[in-house]
């Protein structure tokens, strides 16, 4: 009993301690407001940003920004997942495909994502396209590698069992390989979603008027540390919520619960 309670309290100790230290540091004037605004100030900014009226600088912008960001993430994520899944499963089952792709994909993978930004700006222009392609690029790799590894790991006996029960070769893909790969693919999909949010901010670094990444960059250029911190908190929360939703959706797919 006590153990159960302890296990519920413990995880909150450190965050609460940090929050208290933060609050104390600002309340006692140990750090100046423009370096680190007080938690109360940040909370107020978040409130204004979410529920304030449209008169003030950031008032009520949240819903529009969140919608814009989520739409970009959704598009980029889809563009990452579909080819990542198809190519991954395919190269997991065919050593020709896997050899054909390996060096190219590993080469592209070892380029730090952010250095694509300037190229994307030149080739695709600023805004939606660039953001979406950066997200797609970043999300592709976890999906591809997890799908390839999973597809390559299907036990030969399961394949044999499928053939014995009458599956044709194409049907083996949907009947045996895909369901087998699901748990690992799901893990890859979650990692890819995290990546998508990371690259969202990158894609919104420049040339988009709305979105949470744009908020953070606006705050950076206007020196509003409270807005900056609000943006960070909100994007982390949004990312966590999306992850939770993804987990829920994935857990309903056939093949995940075993």
């Amino acid at each position, binding site marked *: 009993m006590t153990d159960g309670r302890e296990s519920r309290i413990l995880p909150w100790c450190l965050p609460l301690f940090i929050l208290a230290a933060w609050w104390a540091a600002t309340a006692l004037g140990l750090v100046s407001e423009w370096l680190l605004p007080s938690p109360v100030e940040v909370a107020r900014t978040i409130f204004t940003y979410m529920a304030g009226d449209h008169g003030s600088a950031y008032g009520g912008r949240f819903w529009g920004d969140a919608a814009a960001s989520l739409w970009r993430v959704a598009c980029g994520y889809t563009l990452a997942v579909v080819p990542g899944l198809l190519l991954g499963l395919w190269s997991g089952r065919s050593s020709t495909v896997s050899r054909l792709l390996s060096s190219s994909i590993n080469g592209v993978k070892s380029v730090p994502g952010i250095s694509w930004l300037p190229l994307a700006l030149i080739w695709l222009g600023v805004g939606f396209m660039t953001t979406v392609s950066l997200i797609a690029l970043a999300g592709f790799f976890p999906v591809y590698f997890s799908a390839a590894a999973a597809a390559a790991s299907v*036990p030969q*006996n*399961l394949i*044999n*069992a499928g*053939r*014995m*029960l*009458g*599956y044709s070769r194409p*049907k083996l893909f949907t009947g*045996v390989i895909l*369901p*087998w790969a*699901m748990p690992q693919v799901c893990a890859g999909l979650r990692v890819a979603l995290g990546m998508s949010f990371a690259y969202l901010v990158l894609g919104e670094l420049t040339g988009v008027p709305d979105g949470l990444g744009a908020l953070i960059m606006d705050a950076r250029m206007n020196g509003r540390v409270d807005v900056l911190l609000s943006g960070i908190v909100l994007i982390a929360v949004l990312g966590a919520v999306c992850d939770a939703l993804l987990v829920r959706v994935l857990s309903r797919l*056939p*093949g*995940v*619960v*075993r």
Partner: protein
Amino acid sequence: MKGYFICQGLQKSYGQHVVLPGVDMALAQGSITALIGASGCGKSTFLQLAAGFIPLDAGSMLLDGRPCNGPGPGRVMVFQEDALFPWLNVQENVELGLKIGCVALELRKERVREMLALVGLEAWEKSLPSALSGGMRQRVALARALVLRPKLLLLDEPFAALDAITRARMQRLLAELQLQTGVTVLLVTHDVSEACLLADSIHLMGTGLGIVATWTVDVPRPRHPDNTDFAQMKAEMRAQLEAVM
């Protein structure tokens, strides 16, 4: 040769390495045949050839008088590790082969229920394989194979992973099911007691040599594991096994 399932001159090599040099075997309809041999001698390879999972280098196979190639629901295999689909529940696993074979819904539900009753798992229809014990999973695998009413049942050390008591129960179950369905069975095992307990005839395979010895067991079933008639035969088999190793 005469028999229900006949192999003639089955050859298989991996690269330079000859696993089966040309194996002949004939199984009588409704019999249980055991295949024993040291680890790596080619028992599983033989079974996979028979099931059509890997292509022959040379030789021919006849099932019920007709040549057979590639996998098909006439010959089904139960693997050493169960090879159930972990994402399907017991009922779905057993049903899958019938579904792929386009058996009508009503009929296949009926047959699945029947078969699950036979292996004593009516109550576990909706369970996933992960919720079952090893012995229960093996029974599901057996049910999945038998529900297809195969002509030939291929068993690859199906009880090796089980503890002694569950193993004895499964052996009894196999003998019963064989009696009820009259299926022809080819059983690979490394346990000479198991071979004596279940089989009508026993083939011993040597590494790279194919079948090197054959015994016929005439004891009526149900047999008892400590039947003294077996002692002599077992000793012979053990000696042969050591010899060809």
